[in-house]
């Protein structure tokens, strides 16, 4: 008698994911008002200051939001009148999560965004944005770490991403 032993199948533990797509807002050719959204992480103020200076004479609206939690409706509303929003800084897990998710909230309101992440957390930010259907979320990477550095070192790292910001915005 020939006996065949067959192992029972086992089931896949992974959760299914719904495919969705959110369109990114195009960047404006010209713009007057820029929201600078600061999640209060160390060094963020300096990074945003360096980036703002590179954009020349424009109106800057400064908004503070919590790092590891969503921006309040008031903070989002305050930002929503701008032509462009720059968000910083995603240099840890929860702050990177909520920088991505708040950027998506603004994109859904029609505000084009550019978000700043440290290069260590940028891959996670891209993955998260993709999970939410917006794989092309605009992300600029600054060299990790930022926290724990003195102001000069942060400024030095921020200056390195200025050419990338100007390139994205097509500013010569």
């Amino acid at each position, binding site marked *: *008698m*020939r*006996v*065949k*032993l*067959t*192992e*029972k*199948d*086992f*089931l*896949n*533990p*992974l*959760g*299914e*994911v*719904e495919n969705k797509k959110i369109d990114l807002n195009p960047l404006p050719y010209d713009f007057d008002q820029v929201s600078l959204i600061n*999640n*209060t*992480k*160390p060094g963020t103020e300096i990074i945003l200051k360096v980036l703002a200076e590179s954009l020349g004479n424009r109106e800057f609206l400064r908004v503070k939001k*919590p*790092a*590891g*939690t969503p921006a309040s409706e008031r903070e989002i509303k305050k930002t929503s009148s701008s032509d462009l929003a720059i968000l910083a800084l995603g240099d*840890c*897990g*929860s*702050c*990177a*999560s*909520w920088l991505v*998710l708040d950027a998506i909230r603004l994109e859904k309101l029609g505000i084009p965004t550019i978000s700043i992440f440290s290069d260590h*957390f940028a891959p*996670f930010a891209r*993955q*998260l944005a993709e*999970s*939410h259907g917006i794989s092309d979320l605009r992300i600029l990477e600054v060299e990790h770490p930022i*926290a724990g550095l003195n102001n000069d070192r942060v400024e030095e790292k921020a200056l390195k991403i200025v050419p990338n910001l100007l390139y994205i915005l097509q500013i010569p």
Partner: protein
Amino acid sequence: MTRKDEIIVDKNSCGCPIDNLVDDKPSCKNKKTIINNDRLCDSRKSDMEFFVDPDPEKVSLDFYQNRFTDGLPIIPPTRERVNRFLNYTIHNPEDVLAILPPKMGQATPEKIAINSVMAGCLPSFQTVLEQAIIAVSVDKFNLEGVNATTHPVSICTIINGPLIDEIGMNASVGCLAPSNIANATIGRALRLCLINIAGAIPGVGDHATQGSPAKYSYCFGENEEENPWEPLHVERGFNLHESTVTVMAAESPHNVNDHRSQYAEDLLDTIIHTATTAGCNNSHVPGELLIIMSPEHARTIKQDGWSKKDVQNYIHENSHLSPILADRGGSKLDEKNIRDNQVQITRSPQDVVLVVAGGPGRHTMISHGFGGGSETVTMPITLKNCFNQKSVKNYK
């Protein structure tokens, strides 16, 4: 489990009825059916097929290599095992109960059951897991932040009500220790759901710098029999005889050893001293603080005439540290949180999540929360029509 082969006719198998084979009257074209008088058709690949459980060692390694586990061996989630768990759900297996970030995976009863089987749960734990998963998906819990953070936050799961006895949870001596199947595997199953459904894989969707041993399992029942005050679920508006599951984003527990205090204030001062530390999230973003008080400590305080609210007020009012030490976290300390040049680590007395658990001994445990970045969620164990259930037996 065994079963006779079903007859499958292809070019290599004849499908001859057994009666024909036994009578040496094969109907297949091979005509070469009898070998060594065993009277079985030789064109069959097998005469008998045994379906056996997958080798746990092999499946564990396979799942581990696919990053489906916490590193410990798992029970292979076969259809039979998963179905036993689904007997306890009130939902359809494919209903989406929650969407879990960061991967935005759909948590269905079946996926929860698969991960619970893997964790070594008993089928009767299914409803607890489902409610825990729904609880962590509530907005105010902030699973987006809790899963992704560099902070070593785990999810503490506290069970209240008759369910504690019905599923055999440990609420007494060693309730946080490795031993009890419910305490060990409910917490583990929740973590496996976060890994496999939410995508909270260390270094991928979970960025905790070191992580925490509490991420393996941090689950216990409240010792309601020895609690001199109202238990957590009653404090939160549920009936004593209803069962609930509470989830809290919490650090690993830290011991408070006090064998000598005879009065409430002295004992609470020891707890406060342990809790009031720089470097926890509560220091720069005040939020919830979990106190797992031993029955003996609770009795000492109660005998001094203190209510649960008195305890919560005292801990809230006296747990503070200097702004210089407080303002060293990731988020900048909000100046609104500075009062009389001190920063309180809780926002209100309600932030002091006080439960009584454990056995004899004069040790209390404290766990800092995720600061103000997450709020505890308490969910009743309910049926679809929203009736609170008093017994897990209602699900059978």
